[in-house]
Every structure is written in C-alpha cells, then in structure tokens.
C-alpha cells in the first residue's frame, strides 16, 4: 500500500482528533516512576513518550487483559441466570507500539482463532487500529532479528511509522484498516518524503540488533523436538525462581486460568486471568500429581512452546525477540543466551547451519 509523511505536529493533531471523536488512544506514556514508561490510554499527545524507554509490559493487555470477566451469574428462585459479557468493544488506536509488540498480536491471532474463535480476543482486535513505530533497538537483550523479525518489522501493524527527516515520520500504510484511518484524517498526512532518512534509520537499527544474537531461531524447532531429554535441560533453570515475571511481560505468552469469584452469596463472576507455565501449580492434578514437577521441566516447556510446539502447530515462533523476559528476570535467566546455546548444540543438526 502507500506511504505518507506525518509530522510530529500532525501526529499530535491526529491524536487530538481521535480523542475528540471518542476513540481510546493507547501509547507508551509516563507513569509515576520517571524511569519507567507504560502502554496506557492517554488523554493528550503530550503524555505519550514515543522515544522513551521500552515499557516493561507489552500492550497485549489491551487484547487479553490480566483479568477479565467472562460471564456473570445470579441465583434466581428457579435456578441460575447467566449474563453474557460484551464481545464488542469501543474503538481504540494503539500508537507508537514497538514492532516486536505488534507482531505478537498477529502471532496470537492464530491460537485465538484456530477451530474455536475467541470472540473476546477478536472483539478487541477488530476494534483496534495499530500504528507501530520502528525501533532503534533498546539494548543488548533485543533479538528480534534472530526470530525472523526486525526493529522495523511490519507484521501486525496497520500503519508503520519510521522516523525520518527532522521530526517527521514516514507512514507506511499496510492494511485496509490503516488506509481507513489515513482517509478519515487525510489532512494530517502529507505527501511522502524523506525516504532516505527512514531507510538509514532502519538499516542502523537492524545492524544494531542483529549483532546481539546472530542466529536463526526459526531453525531450532527440529533440534528441540528431538532433544527433549538433553543434558541442557537438566541444569538450565537452576537459578529460575518460577515467578513467571517473564510470562507476564512477554508479548506472546497467553496462557490463562479461569476462576469463579463470588460477589455476594447469590451472585458472582467468572474471570480469566493470566497464568504461567512457570508456576508449579499450573499443571498440578487434583490428585496432587504434577507432571512437571521441577523448575527445569517448567522452563523447558516455556522454551519448547515458543520455539518448537507453536511453530509446528501454527507456523511461526511464539517469540518476537523483544528481550523483555531477560530484562524482567530477577535471577538473570536470559532467553537470548539460552537460544545461543541451543543454536550451538543444534549446529550439527541444522542443515543450513544458521548458527554461529
């Protein structure tokens, strides 16, 4: 599709237009701690920090909230009455999200849509237009290039903004939804220019990230599937606490729990809550038997799900290389480091030798 130019002033204007039309705008923004940003709804463009630090949490919560009501029930004289929850959602625009975060949303469409379609997920998906912003690379823990993506990846975005000359962004319009947004606010978008600056931004960012982890993680699934009992797993997670902070901040981790909560003696709600395979109780049977009894096994599950199970089932890695898990880990578990180790081991088994 086409390319336009969007100046910072016009972007501010676009946000104002959207907000006044009642659209929720979610962007990386300041929170009380000045070192930290978070994706959150903003009340004006001033609150957004598009160039700020990487928010510790991905924006997946705007599609799969940490806790959400699935239904409400109430006891009546002649039984139970159920109240459904809405699967339609008000319009929102996610602005300035990183390409790694945005790619995750499209990856998750697969699991949310195969066979049974999760309307709660897709209700939010359909109500959302995603305007991503190419990233200059955050730090040494970034490895998006190793998972077949990149700091300027388009996947999942409706519009991709790339910093260009001065304070303008080159806007690549990628989907009909993106096109509709541009058409509805045509006066904010100008004729495309500054393609050279945008190109060099993209190249510099890609170079920066690519040097962090020069492997092809897409080629690990065979080794992973064949080496379930490998020595590597037996000592891999000694330092892991099993806290699941990695899963909480991960843009692609989507496992959940379903719980009932009474809200009085005759009524209550059923919720789904984020959950994590890193918690011991995740798989424990009612009998007390736990098929994944130790942290090493649980960590192996996390790696396998992302780099073997999901790709085999859905054709793509369940990882976008954002590096949040490594940054969030209080114990120094480091997924890029582990992938590097696996790539080295897999070297012999991977015919194309995508490992160094």
């Amino acid at each position, binding site marked *: 599709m086409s390319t336009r130019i969007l100046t910072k002033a016009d972007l501010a204007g676009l946000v104002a237009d959207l907000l006044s039309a009642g659209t929720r705008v979610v962007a990386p923004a300041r929170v009380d701690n000045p070192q930290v940003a978070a994706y959150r709804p903003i009340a004006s463009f001033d609150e957004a920090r598009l160039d700020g630090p990487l928010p510790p949490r991905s924006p997946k919560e705007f599609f799969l909230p940490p806790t959400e009501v*699935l*239904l409400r*029930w109430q*006891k009546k004289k002649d*039984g*139970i009455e*159920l109240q*459904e*929850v809405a*699967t339609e959602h008000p319009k929102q625009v996610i602005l300035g999200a990183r390409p790694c975060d945005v790619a995750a949303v499209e990856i998750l469409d697969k*699991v*949310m849509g*195969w*066979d*049974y*379609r*999760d*309307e*709660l997920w897709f209700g939010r998906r359909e109500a959302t237009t995603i305007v991503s912003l190419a990233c200059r690379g955050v730090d040494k823990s970034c490895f998006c290039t190793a998972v077949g993506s990149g700091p300027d990846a388009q996947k999942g975005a409706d519009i991709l903004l790339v910093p260009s000359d001065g304070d303008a962004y080159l806007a690549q319009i990628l989907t009909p939804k993106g096109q509709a947004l541009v058409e509805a606010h045509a006066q904010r978008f100008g004729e495309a220019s500054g393609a050279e600056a945008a190109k060099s931004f993209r190249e510099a960012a890609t170079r920066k990230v690519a040097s962090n982890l020069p492997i092809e993680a897409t080629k690990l699934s065979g080794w992973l*599937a064949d080496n*379930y009992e490998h020595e590597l797993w037996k000592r891999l997670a000694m330092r892991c606490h099993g806290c699941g902070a990695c899963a909480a901040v991960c843009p692609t981790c*989507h*496992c*959940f*729990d*379903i*719980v*009932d909560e*009474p809200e009085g003696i005759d009524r*209550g709600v*059923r919720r*789904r809550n984020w*959950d994590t*395979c890193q918690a011991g109780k*995740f*798989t*424990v*049977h*009612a*009998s007390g*038997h736990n*098929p*994944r009894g130790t942290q090493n*096994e649980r960590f192996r*599950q996390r790696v*396998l*799900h992302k780099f*073997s*199970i999901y790709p*085999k*089932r859905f054709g793509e890695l369940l990882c976008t290389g954002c590096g949040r898990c490594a940054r969030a880990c209080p114990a120094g578990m480091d997924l890029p480091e582990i992938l590097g180790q696996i790539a080295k081991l897999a070297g012999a088994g991977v015919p194309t030798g995508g490992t160094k």
Partner: protein
Amino acid sequence: MNLYQPYLMRIEEAVDETPDTRTFKLVFQDPKVAESFDFQAGQFGEYSAFGEGESTFCIASSPTRKGYIECSFKEAGKVTGALRKLGVGDTIGFRGPYGNRFPVGQMEGHDVVFIAGGIGLAPVRCAIWNVLDQREKVGDVTIVYGARSVGDLVYKRELEGWAKRSDVKLWQAVEPGGEAPDWKGEIGLVPAIVEKAAPRSADAFAVVCGPPIMIKLTLPVLEKLGFSEERVFTTLENRMKCGLGKCGRCNIGPVYVCKDGPVFSAKELKALPQEL
C-alpha cells in the same frame, strides 16, 4: 454467546457410586440445545459449579442415548467438592463437547476389549454402551475392570448387568485386601488380570483408561498379547481450563490434549514426552 459461556443443565438424577464418587444425569434447560446437542464417545466437557469454577470430565453416557448426558466425578478439589453438594433439581453449567473420540466406527466387525481402573471406567463406559447399543456390529466384547476395593467399584448396577450378559465377558478385580467376604471376582492388579483374561488380539481394539500408572503397566501387557499399538486407545486426563486449545495448560509435547486428544492411540502416546 461467547466461547466460555456454558449451557445450563438441570440435574435429573444423582447417584453416589462410592463414598467420594458421584454420577449426575443432566438435561439441557434449553430444549433447542437439547435437540441439537450431539457428541461422540470419548469427548469431554467443562462442568461448572457456579461460584466455584469449572472442572473437566468426560461424558460418561453413550451418544446412542439421546436427550441427556451423564458425568461421573470423584471429589478431589474445590469444584468437585462443590458439585458433590448439588443434588436433583440444581443447575450446573456445561461447555462442550470438546476433543476427539474413540474410533467406535472402526471397531465394526472386530473384537473389542475395554480395560479400566477406578473412576477411569467413566470414559470407557461411554464407549462400552456405545458398542453394546449396537452389539451386533462388533465381535467379542471383553471388559476388564479393577478398583482398589469393592467399595471403590463404580457403576455397580451396570457391572451386574454386564456380568449377566452372555455376549459380554466381564472380568472384575480388586486389589489384594480390597475384597469383601462375598467377593467373587478376581483379586489383583488390572495389568495382571488383562494377562489372565488374555483376550483374542487379532485385529482387536482395546480401550484403556485409569490412573497413569495403570495405563503405563497395561500397555506392555497388551503389546505382549499381540494387540496392535494403533488399535489400543487411551484417554488422557491432563489438567485443563478452557477445553478449546487456548489456555495452554494441557499442552504436552506437540499436542494440546484438549484438541488433539483426549483420546490417543498407544502409538501416539509413545511419541509424546513422558510428562504424564
């Protein structure tokens, strides 16, 4: 209606199978759902006790019996504890049917062996009745069922009925020490009884369900008897939440038990990581 919204069902009958195991006969409140609801032997559902949560059990009645479903469960936790407190006339929630099925159709013209331990008889019972309701379509029917003690045997009335039938060979067993004074069945563990029963294995099908250790020890016996591992089926009881292949909980190796299972052939089971 979103995916997680259950159907409401009325408890028509409640039978205590053992001191901690109960069977419900359930009828859909909405006649339209009752009309259209269909399932296959081996499928499961998510049953809810409102206020406590959902629990996963197979459908224990046969798809040949229309208009209702049955489930049997053992009190083990929060939800099963709450379900056990419910009785005739109470409302529970049901989502399903989910998962794959026993290949009942393929069994036509062949001998079938059903092997179960404890509450594991529930999913097998579904297949048993499915086959017995079309008895003429299959060859010999052998049932081997064991429990820890006489008191732990479930579906006692049906066991009596099967014992009386001339077209069913029933082997009942309890573990040593679990027998009552008037116990006429076998004493021993299920794998040993299967070996003793030694059903004809040529082209025969077997359906096995019970505690993980029982399944683990029974499969080699069947192999020894000459059963093809492609014709031996079991049903896995992983912890599940959604039943829809989303929540990730039942994932082992490359499979989502709730979608690719719960029924697996012995051959498929061998290929899975030993995370059972």
